[in-house]
């Protein structure tokens, strides 16, 4: 099968750009730990309230400028809500759903994770800039989906 000379050049360039994208994406994911949230722990979705750590959802300080937020998502709320943390903190979110699939998204950050019943999801973010951040559910979860929101206040 013969190919036009220009088409060969075009496809070689295209393949080059794509391979470069693969390498950059792979490097960021595996060497820099920037991959999307993919935690693999599971939980019985019927027994979230009785299973640690979700029997006591809340904000816990676990180090200097380091916090863990243990959070349950359920129609149509985040527990705990109205979270307050000092500026410069690194926050580790540990989340699960008590009913259907929800999304955890914080506008103005890269925090964006699916939270599914039966699975424990984890995602981390450092909050440098003070302000009030909007947390919302970005996966359709029922008629009150658009009301499911809370805030993280960074002081």
């Amino acid at each position, binding site marked *: 099968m013969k190919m036009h000379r220009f088409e060969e050049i075009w496809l070689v360039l295209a393949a080059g750009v794509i391979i470069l994208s693969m390498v950059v*994406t792979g490097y960021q994911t595996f060497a820099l730990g920037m*991959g999307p949230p993919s935690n*693999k722990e599971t939980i019985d979705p019927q027994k979230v309230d009785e299973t640690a750590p979700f029997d006591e959802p809340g904000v816990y300080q676990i180090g200097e400028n380091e916090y863990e937020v243990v959070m349950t998502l359920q129609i149509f709320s985040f527990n705990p809500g109205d979270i307050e943390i000092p500026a410069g903190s690194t926050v580790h979110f540990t989340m699960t759903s008590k009913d259907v699939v929800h999304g955890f998204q914080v506008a103005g950050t890269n925090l*964006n994770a699916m939270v*599914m019943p039966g699975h424990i999801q984890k995602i981390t973010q450092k909050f440098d800039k003070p302000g009030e951040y909007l947390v919302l559910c970005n996966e*359709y979860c029922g008629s009150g989906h658009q009301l499911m929101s*809370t805030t993280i206040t960074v002081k």
Partner: protein
Amino acid sequence: MMKAIRSIHAPDAKLTMAHMYVAFAALFVGASMGLLQTLERSGKFTLPFGIGYYQILTVHGVVLGLVLTTFFILGFMVAVQSKTAGKYTSGERKWGWAGFWMMTTGVITTTIFILLNEASVLYTFYAPLMAHPGFYIGLTLVIVGSWLEGFVIFRRHARWRKENPGERTPLLSFMAVITMLMWLIATIGVAATVLLQFIPWSLGLVDSIDVLVSRTLFWYFGHPLVYFWLLPAYMAWYAIIPKIVGGKIFSDSLARLSFILLLLFSIPVGFHHQLTEPGIDPFWKYMQVILTFLVVIPSLMTAFSLFATFEARGRELGGKGLFGWVKKMPWKDVRFLAPFIGMLWFIPGGAGGIINASNQMNQVIHNTIWVTGHFHLTAATSVILTFFGIAYWLVPSVTGRKLTAKMNRLGIIQTIVWSVGMAIMSGAMHWQGLLGGPRRSAYSEYLGNADTAAWGPYQLAQAVGGSILFIGMIIMLIIFVNLAFFAPKGEEEFPIAEVSEDAGETPKVFENWKLWIGVTVALILFAYTIPFIDIIQNAPPGSKGFRLW
């Protein structure tokens, strides 16, 4: 008065037109819902009669994503195969009708349950939201019906090969086979989740459902679904548009090669819709990201071939200089203009798709309205404008009528209206998504803070764009009804391009179906076996059903 001359065998033409009627009825229903959604999300309008936002969103997704596309595509493929490989036998046609009626029954069943508010689960029907079993049973009928028609297309192609031993098969028939093969392999995933998980669970035969397994099977189907929409547009771009501009197909073998590559790389990539999900191994997410990137190659091959065809033709007509050929294109012929504008929209559409698939970058836009903006460029503009571009000649051509100058002019207006409406709506969706605005959400001021307030103007812009698109849809329906029932009788060209003399021989290996099916299956097994076993072995206790609307 002119005599009506159909371009294909009359009974085949009737089968094609039956599909078109359903497709354009779906366009009317679905686009009307789209208008209501953009108005609701502007915050200036409340849906009447207590109709829920998510109910009309479910209608919009099912009717446009599954019904309009599948019916149009099958009708189109029946016509091009009948034209290029020859008419169907009466037995083949009977199976085609059986498929059509099965699909139509399925559509009606599913629609009834959505309208009864028993199935506001959106077209992705993610568990553990649980719809009425009738919703799932209706969808199953649509899928199985499309399989019957797929087998008719396979059989017709095989019969042509038997009748013409050793010869190169008609390009469009070959492409139809690839498209239906991909559809068949992909729909096995959604059929498996619906038949083995959703139907028994919604009937109460089992108590719980494995959510991650159902989502994985859905997206095994969900990504090739979008290529199933795209491939028929590529068929027109490769093998029909060159004829409309008066040129030839740049290369038969490159066209076939790009279709084979699309078959190989469009299925083992479903994880790129699940990148932010727990429970899937990050290594296998990344492997599927790599496979997703490979689909770029056949798309760029396509872009090259198309512009090579246009440039070659423009120069033949005397176009001088680097871009002189552009002026020689038939801009006033809607059969060219509509799909060409569709191609242009595929440039930003495709680029956005690469962003979405780029593993960690997905976190920036996942489930934001950016994604909605993305597929309204690719599916609802590139593909749909091409489908409209096909309908302008296909409908009169198979019904024995003429595309009049007046309808041609109206078609040009339609193309412009659609492009303007979509530029406004999709552009606003992309920006709002980057600011964090979620998709698939009714109007909400959330907690009334600055983030949400910043979204307001974009939501208004979406309502403006949506209203313009609604006008575009009405214009399209006027043209369709005119071409199907009122246009003057006569003979309209069914454009099929020939292969350029400069193009080389087509290698025989392209018609080696055992090989290509084998490689496709091998790639799917590579991409899915290990992570899928992992998902099943480490599965949590299942979820019971929820009806939350």
